[in-house]
């Protein structure tokens, strides 16, 4: 008989609680925990203790900060392994978008931030497989190419984990970029113009967003 099999029911339930909390429990284990929580007064207190452990473990992990330039260094290592990336060709579409972007009246501080961001975070991130379009990701599907999007620049001190968490929870995707100046093309799952405007506002409100400008909008009724 294994150690796990020798456990008392309480021991077994306490062992399963972390997996109940992280949502990975299923089948008979899930049923057993739910029955225990419903029937034993001590179970809810135990759940509270497990939640405190959850918070403690999360805090201990998130106290560790990955280096801000990790992505940049990884891209260089990847290029060293896979061969040099091609520089993107110019595009009138990009030139126009960039012209609008630079026209945003946020002054010298923005320009300095742009340079800093380009140096620290994304300088080497040119798309290797683009075919005459600076922002297209190599291998992107047709629906990505038609997806509504915005052009976004993140603050120099933006953390990758914050950005990726925000993108993931809102169904947004980086579908292109960054350019040498740090501009990303953000695909947006907007069904209509109102959704699009709402999502632009949401992106603009994030503390890590430097600037966002509108790109392709969804066509209502189309």
């Amino acid at each position, binding site marked *: 008989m*294994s*150690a*796990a*099999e020798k*456990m008392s029911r*309480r*021991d077994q339930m*306490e*062992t*399963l*609680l*972390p*997996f109940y909390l*992280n*949502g*990975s*429990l299923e089948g008979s284990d899930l049923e057993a925990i739910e029955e225990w929580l419903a029937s034993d007064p*001590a179970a809810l*207190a*135990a759940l509270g*203790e*497990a939640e*405190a*452990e*959850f*918070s*403690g*473990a*999360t*805090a*201990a*992990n*998130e106290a*560790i900060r*990955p*280096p801000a330039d*990790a*992505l940049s*260094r*990884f*891209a260089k290592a*990847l*290029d060293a*392994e*896979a061969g040099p*990336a091609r520089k993107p060709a110019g595009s009138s579409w990009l030139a126009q978008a960039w012209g609008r972007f630079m026209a945003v009246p946020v002054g010298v501080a923005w320009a300095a931030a742009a340079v800093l961001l380009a140096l620290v975070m994304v300088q080497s*991130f040119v*798309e*290797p*497989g683009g075919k005459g379009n600076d922002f297209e*990701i*190599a*291998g*992107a599907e047709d629906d990505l190419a038609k997806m509504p999007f915005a052009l976004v620049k993140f603050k120099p001190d933006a953390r*990758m*984990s914050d*950005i*990726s968490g925000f993108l*993931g929870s809102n169904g947004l995707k*980086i579908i292109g970029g960054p350019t040498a100046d740090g501009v990303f093309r953000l695909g947006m799952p907007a069904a209509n113009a109102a959704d699009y405007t709402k999502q632009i506002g949401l992106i603009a409100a994030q503390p890590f967003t430097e600037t966002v400008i509108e790109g392709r909008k969804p066509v209502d009724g189309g």
Partner: protein
Amino acid sequence: MTAATETDRALVDRVAKGDRAAVRLLFMRHHARVYRFVARQTGSEMMADDIANEVFLELWRQAPGFEGRSEVSTWLLGIARFKALSLLRKKKEDWIDDEAAAAVPDGADTPEVVTMKEDKAAALRRFVDALPEEHRVVIDLAYYHGQSVSEIGEVLDIPVATVKTRMFYARKKLGEALKAAGYDRGWP
């Protein structure tokens, strides 16, 4: 299976076809967790930096062979675990004297004294940090990485029953440490 997981797999498919943008997207999505996982395992952020980078290069190399039998995150953590153990074996004597030694609790404060200075949450975090590695890693994988019992077994290459046994002892030790510090939670 969540939509996010399907997207991970779709990205791995793109990586398998040589799409560098896809591997960078996966890096952005998973790097922080892989980095933290290795940092917790090795006690060295320098090693975590090297290994996390290697994990994603390995993703680039191995993507064509990825069969999707596990979640991409589980696969990456498994690669990270393997690389960390390999490097630890090579560098053990070098790093144990400095970084890791600094990370090991010095024993100057008893749990009671520590708790006088901290609230329960901070004490609990400290007790999680002080768990033996084999116990702490299952706590981290379950609570922070959201892994299931079977996924943890896959990452650590141990049977499911062993995962449960380690979780049992990990939580028991946390309970005992809390109790010693004046927080009796009724179990164990």
